[in-house]
């Protein structure tokens, strides 16, 4: 750790702190008193079901990719609690600005499994999804959706709407100016905006220690003038609780918050990646002991909220849903080639309409 010590004779003019939040230990035992919502068994089970569905869905998506029926795909394995926990604390009218590894949030907000497959299968119609109409689609250029989130939140504030923008990205994104510029602006205008970094330790092959010299990513919020909190990102109860607090504060006009969700990417970056090239099997194995699904299950089982029979039934249900969605995706015919012009402009200028006719095989008189 780099030395932070400077001349001790100079007066201290500001002090900052970063707090860490965790409720459930990796074995599912309780670390500190649980938040109020945890007494709602239905909610905890809903969170659990979402994470299990996401995990099975990811497995199916990878199988489709490996058999040439889906394009490149990014799994959430190991970090399901981040996007599910955050989305569960949002209202429908809030605005989600996700990265490409936030399927859990999209599913929670009503996007259909087959719509996600359609997008990763190379069809833009997957982004015209069944989730809230104002939600943004996946952002692929890392962190470049953060300024959009600030623009959205500014619009919400300008119109005095009690809505919140929620922007998700990964640890690599915190190295980009986009993210800092957006955070800085959100701080200046006290915008209703929650930034969430899923710190899964790896930006493809680059480990966190090569992204930053900071002890935490949460402290990056301090430079933008607002609170950053570190949360155990493999503890969905902690994720939900942190998001609930931050979103309520933002809705209440108290300005932006930043959540660093400390988690681990157990899978490859995408189906095009081979993580064995840059990290050891031992490291990955060690993190399997912390993963969010088994953790919540252990708690639910210990509380007698969940049984083996429940688990079997859920597995069967998820299997059926995922298979049915895959069928629907595979049965969706590609659009006509000339449809690539359909949403280029509100009204297609004549010069491009001619190109459209050319692609359609029509010939100008």
């Amino acid at each position, binding site marked *: 750790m780099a030395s932070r010590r400077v001349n001790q004779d100079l007066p201290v003019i500001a002090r900052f702190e970063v707090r860490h939040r965790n409720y459930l230990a990796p074995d599912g035992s309780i670390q500190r008193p649980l938040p109020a919502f945890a007494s709602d068994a239905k909610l905890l089970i809903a969170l659990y079901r979402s994470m299990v569905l996401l995990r099975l869905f990811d497995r199916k998506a990878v199988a489709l990719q490996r058999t040439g029926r889906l394009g490149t795909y990014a799994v959430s394995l190991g970090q399901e609690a981040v996007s599910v926990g955050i989305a569960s604390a949002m209202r429908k009218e809030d605005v989600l600005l996700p990265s490409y590894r936030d399927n859990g949030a999209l599913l929670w907000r009503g996007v259909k499994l087959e719509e996600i497959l359609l997008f990763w299968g190379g069809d833009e119609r997957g982004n015209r999804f069944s989730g809230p*109409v104002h939600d943004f689609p996946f952002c692929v250029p890392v962190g*470049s959706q953060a*300024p959009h989130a600030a*623009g959205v939140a500014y619009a919400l504030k300008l119109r005095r709407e009690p809505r919140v923008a929620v922007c998700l990205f990964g640890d690599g994104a915190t190295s980009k100016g986009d993210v800092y510029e957006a955070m800085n*602006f959100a701080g200046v205008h006290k915008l209703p905006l929650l930034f969430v970094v899923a710190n899964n330790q790896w930006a493809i092959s680059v480990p966190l220690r090569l992204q930053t010299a900071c002890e935490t990513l949460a402290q990056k919020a301090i430079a933008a003038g607002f609170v950053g909190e570190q949360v155990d990102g493999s503890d969905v109860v902690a994720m939900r609780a942190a998001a609930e607090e931050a979103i309520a504060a933002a809705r209440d006009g108290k300005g932006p918050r930043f959540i660093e969700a400390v988690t681990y990417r157990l899978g490859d970056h995408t189906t095009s990646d081979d993580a064995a090239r840059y990290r050891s099997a031992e490291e990955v194995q060690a993190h399997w002991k912390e993963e969010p699904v088994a953790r919540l299950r252990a708690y639910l089982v210990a509380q007698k909220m969940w049984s083996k029979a429940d688990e079997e039934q859920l597995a069967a249900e998820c299997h059926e849903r995922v298979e049915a969605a895959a069928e629907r995706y595979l049965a969706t015919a590609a659009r006509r080639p000339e449809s690539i012009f359909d*949403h*280029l402009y509100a009204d297609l*200028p004549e010069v491009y309409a001619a190109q459209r006719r050319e692609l359609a095989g029509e010939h100008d008189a």
Partner: protein
Amino acid sequence: MPEATLVEAINLALARAMEDDPDVVVLGEDVGVNGGVFRATAGLQKRFGAERVLDTPLAELLISGLCVGMAAQGLKPVGEIQFMGFIYPCLDQLVNHASRLRNRTQGRLTCPMVLRTPHGAGIRAPEHHSESTEAMLAHIPGLRVVMPSSPERAYGLLLAAIHDPDPVVFLEPTRLYRAAKGEVEDNGEALPLDVAFVLREGGDVTLIGWGAVLKETMAAADALSAEGIAAEVIDLATLKPYDEDTVLGSVAKTGRCVIVHEAARTGGFGAEIAADIAEHRLSSLLAPVTRVTGYDTVVPMARLEQYYMPSVERIMTAARKVCQFS
């Protein structure tokens, strides 16, 4: 009709758009209290409040990204980039987001934003303040690129850009901000986008330009007429999508064409027009299509910039040459 400079016309259009539509917001560096470094936004903050006319932090990427987010939420943001030399951090936002939000969501989200910036050399500004890189922007599918060359067209085209449901980059000829004066009726009427303006009719040669070079191009046309050459002058005004019909129609009539732009020659927008003429009007041509452009150099600083920009003399020489060709 009252007279206005080009920058005053911009100001009138912004005020009119903000007056007519509460969703219009203006943002950028120094656009508030200061009224913009060229005063294009003078008085707007006082009139419409600091929420709708906001001074952003000094971050160009942010300005363009904010516009995308605001536009997706239904606002009509008009962002200002202080000089074109500082627009490059916005390219990621323009290429990856603004220009394709409609397409990538199949019409679910749209991006009705305008990004304004001063364009071009000729005001003895410091380094990085004189570029004209419009061709880069005109290459981006889904964008509109507009450049007025008179106060009247600045007013009408800016209103059109703000009303347009898709993203528009609006390039303002810095050199004409105060040099160009004309009558501007503040009547809220937009001019059509995607349409070129014929500034002068003539049957011998077509001169095509956009932005500040129209000044020299019109002067050249005047001088050529004294030599018996009747030049037709076209202000392209919208570069993307450009008005092919007006250009091709004029070339069909004259058979001769000189394209004038301040930007460097290689990959400049003149090449696009020349290619279209070759493709569609080869049989009408009586001489090779010729370009008068900035050189393929870095735009020189103040002492030499006058040699870089297309001069009346260079335009006349090119016009005479195509008129004397066989």
